[in-house]
């Protein structure tokens, strides 16, 4: 009789495993069907609603973010299974530093723990061969988190299958500002360098002078190549959970032509159906957009 609870547990475990395998199989079938149409190359997520989720479920403070992390791992798994190559997530904004110090500290501790876990053998990084980038003003982070982030970037530098960009201490306006600064410095250095060579050249005709003036002016590519997000193409879809429809200073430069989705679900509640819905919508407008891109 004492063996009964143990047997029931084993049966439960067995049933769970079976169910998981069935779900996994159906999911892969679904993905194969969706892949008949165009699949986005780059997906971006604003993971909004963790604290509201904790409040809603009556959990303690901070557990909303932990639930959010599990949801994130699930979404990453779905994205990479589907064949999406780049995924960007908005982990922590520069504006979030304005929150209560205790909350900021607990978020930093959680991020440190999770960043370190990425280096473990069983982590999703090794499972999918992910190259990880940390995008943002890393100087604003404390030393431990920054060191851990740099370690992960170095360790995954050789991975090439898929890419995960984690925006931490990030603001789009800050990113643009840094790119503008770098472009100014580079251009001024170039002008100085070329100016010293062209000292004796006084017979240049008007055309050459025009070209020179054009070269002296900063071009769009100068700014773009100095953006931290230039390691990835522009996102095709931006998904913000919790139903808010705003960009909140995230990837303003890169989402000019991205499709914007704002499912009402809070981030820990996000699931496969939201991802599938976003991709189906993307496929609907894709052919029209491709035509426009070719015209441009």
């Amino acid at each position, binding site marked *: 009789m004492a063996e009964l609870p143990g047997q029931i547990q084993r049966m439960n475990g067995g049933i769970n495993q079976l169910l998981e395998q069935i779900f996994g199989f159906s999911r892969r079938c679904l993905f194969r069907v969706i892949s008949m149409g165009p699949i986005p190359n780059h997906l971006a997520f604003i993971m909004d609603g963790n604290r509201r989720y904790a409040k809603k479920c009556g959990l303690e403070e901070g557990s909303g973010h932990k639930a959010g992390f599990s949801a994130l791992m699930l979404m990453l798994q779905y994205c990479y299974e589907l064949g999406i190559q780049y995924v960007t997530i908005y982990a922590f904004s520069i504006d979030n530093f304005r929150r209560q110090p205790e*909350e900021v500290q607990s978020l930093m501790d959680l991020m440190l723990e999770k960043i370190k876990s990425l280096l473990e053998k069983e982590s999703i990084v090794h499972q999918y061969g992910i190259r990880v980038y940390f995008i943002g003003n890393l100087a604003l982070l404390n030393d431990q988190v920054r060191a851990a982030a740099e370690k992960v970037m170095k360790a995954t530098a050789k991975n090439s299958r898929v890419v995960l960009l984690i925006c931490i201490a990030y603001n789009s306006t800050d990113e643009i500002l840094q790119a503008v600064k770098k472009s100014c410095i580079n251009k001024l250095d170039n002008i100085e360098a070329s100016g010293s060579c062209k000292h004796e050249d006084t017979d240049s005709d008007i055309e050459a002078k025009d070209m020179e003036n054009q070269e002296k002016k900063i071009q769009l590519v100068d700014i773009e190549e100095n953006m931290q997000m230039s390691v990835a193409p522009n996102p095709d879809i931006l998904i913000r959970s919790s139903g808010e429809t705003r960009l909140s200073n995230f990837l303003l430069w890169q989402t000019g032509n991205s499709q914007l989705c704002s499912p009402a679900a809070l981030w820990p509640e996000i699931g496969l159906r939201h991802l599938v819905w976003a991709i189906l919508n993307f496929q609907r407008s894709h052919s029209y957009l491709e035509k426009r891109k070719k015209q441009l």
Partner: protein
Amino acid sequence: MLSLRVPTPTSFRRLHAGRSRLSRDCLISYSPSFVNRGVRLRVRSTKSEVVFTPTEEEEEEVTLPEELQPELMPKHVAIIMDGNGRWAKNQGLQPWDGHRAGVEALKEIVELSGRWGLQVLTVFAFSTDNWIRPRIEIDFLFSLFERSLKSEFQTLAKNNVRISIIGDSSKLPKTLLRLINEVEEATKNNTRFQLIVAVGYSGKYDVLQACRGIAQRVKDGEIDVDEIDEGLIEQELETNCTEFPYPDLLIRTSGELRVSNFLLWQLAYTELFFAQELWPDFGRSGYIEALMSFQQRQRRFGGRKS
């Protein structure tokens, strides 16, 4: 004509229209108008036929629709006027008929915005991406713009509206450029409401020209590279023509879920609203729906609302 106009303290907003007797044969009726518009008084005497009524400019009805709350109205609304071509196609008309209908819709929205107390309205008239359209359509669009500007300029100037045009004006026809300069110069001191029209504009181009301006200032020794900050970029962007460069609400019609490179930097914390209607059908009801949606949103700017 006499008009009695007093500044409105906030408590006046709670007053309802009413009437009271000044004397046995003299009635005074008053109705509170919208914020900053004062109180409108009408004095009617039964003995004489004299009626003191407000001057013509204040005749218009300025109360907000009851669905909207005055204290939650946005200061700056931006609109992407999408869907003229599709509207024309649905009606079996030519694309330029769609644009004409679009201008009529725009007139209505500008009037409502002014009446409902908005400070700035920015509209996306022509993007840098639109240059690929057929030449005949582009020429029509610019001539339509010129005609509309000429015909509406007087009304807008009389109503104390400031008009600003932003965007890369280098490719615009010379006559249009001259008209734009005239209009901007003539209305630059108007203060009640500002209409910003983006023509040949793209958010990236705006940041690029701001960057060039800053680089020039650094080269001239006016500022140091280390002094470049977000405030400086904001000053150099084309939206520096207004006191409120950041839209509170962005509306895009025709159901497309994209920003299409409009106002990049300025949209950092803007609430986005995507309307299903095509632009010529947008009108008053669509506008009210968008503003109602805005008023229900919780804006946190990265912080927390505890």
